[in-house]
């Protein structure tokens, strides 16, 4: 009973309490770069979940065999191998999405969430707990990307996940799209304001 609670805790903490983006300020580059639409954010999130889980399971199984001095290098190589696999799968199954994400998929190699979790959690815990931790952190990251992507997509084109919510002026409605939201400044400003709002709420509770 105790272990299943522990596993649940490992899963749930990544979603909010230790959310990688909002709470730990990790992996800012992909968060800002790929969230021009909600779908792009979602795809990126799933790619990270995939790499996190697979490298987490492998590293956790071999954790007693990896020499302490070269652990970071070993982790990086394992992560790079899984990122290559993810990139090839994505390019084979969803070519337009793979093109849109461009070099940000290979950049998962240096994503601080992955190396950070491997160093801080996976390398010290058994496979089952590492799996739950990886899943939780990955889902927390995906959730963040989808939130940010939805806000930016809504304000830049009036749609979320491609479904039109606000009718734009071009289609005879009232909403005038905010061009800035697709551009880099929109990403910085949206995330900054979101962080501020989250800080306000978490300080009160």
């Amino acid at each position: 009973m105790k272990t299943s609670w522990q596993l649940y805790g490992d899963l749930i903490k990544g979603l909010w309490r230790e959310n990688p983006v909002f709470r730990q300020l990790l992996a800012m580059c992909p968060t800002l770069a790929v969230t021009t639409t909600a779908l792009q954010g979602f795809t990126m999130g799933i790619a990270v979940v995939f790499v996190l889980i697979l490298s987490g399971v492998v590293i956790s199984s071999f954790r007693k065999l990896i020499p302490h001095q070269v652990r970071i290098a070993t982790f990086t190589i394992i992560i790079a191998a899984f990122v290559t696999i993810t990139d090839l799968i994505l390019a084979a199954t969803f070519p337009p999405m793979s093109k849109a994400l461009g070099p940000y998929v290979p950049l998962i190699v240096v994503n601080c969430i992955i190396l950070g979790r491997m160093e801080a959690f996976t390398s010290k815990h058994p496979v089952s707990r590492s799996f739950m931790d990886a899943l939780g952190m990955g889902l927390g990251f995906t959730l963040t990307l989808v939130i940010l992507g939805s806000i930016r997509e809504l304000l830049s084109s009036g749609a979320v996940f491609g479904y039109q919510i606000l009718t734009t002026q071009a289609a005879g409605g009232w909403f005038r799209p905010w061009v800035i939201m697709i551009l880099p400044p929109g990403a910085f400003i949206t995330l900054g304001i979101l962080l501020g709002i989250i800080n306000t709420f978490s300080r009160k509770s």
Partner: protein
Amino acid sequence: MNLLLIFISATVVNNFVLTYFLGICPFLGVTGRLKSAFGMGIATTFVMTLTGGITWIVYRLILVRFGVPFLEYVAYILVIASLVQIIEMFIRKTNPSLYRALGIYLPLITTNCAILGLALFATLRNYGFLQSLVYGFGAGVGFTFVMLIMAGIREELDLADIPKSFQGAAITLITAGLLALAFMGFSGLIYA
């Protein structure tokens, strides 16, 4: 002329931090003080220039020649990690005071996504050897430039009266957004 365009494009028009969002971690972490921002910028420029050249050699002369370009990511990260290690040992032997100044920043560069991003972009655009070197140097200069501007702004921000919830990362991101907006003005410098 072509090289000059690549340099300007990498430095201000397509600045790595403000348009590609690469290197945000040191951008948020190290820009608290002007001096450390400068140290980080110089160290990164150095590594970026070398990475531009060496990854070109590795990709063209090893990976493509032996028909294994899919090993690109693994090879690049190894090149970068060992490069940083070599530079660290070299600086420690030759210039101890510089080593103390850069100290903690050097190992951090390995996980700076701007470096890997640079290698990937240079490969993606089919740059030649000299072009890759210039691209790396330009990207490094642009990175240092933005780090210095941001550090200067943040030193002033410390004195400003900011709502408690927005202190720290939140206000830094919003400031970066305004800075990115200003940098978009440079896009008129070149076309394409």
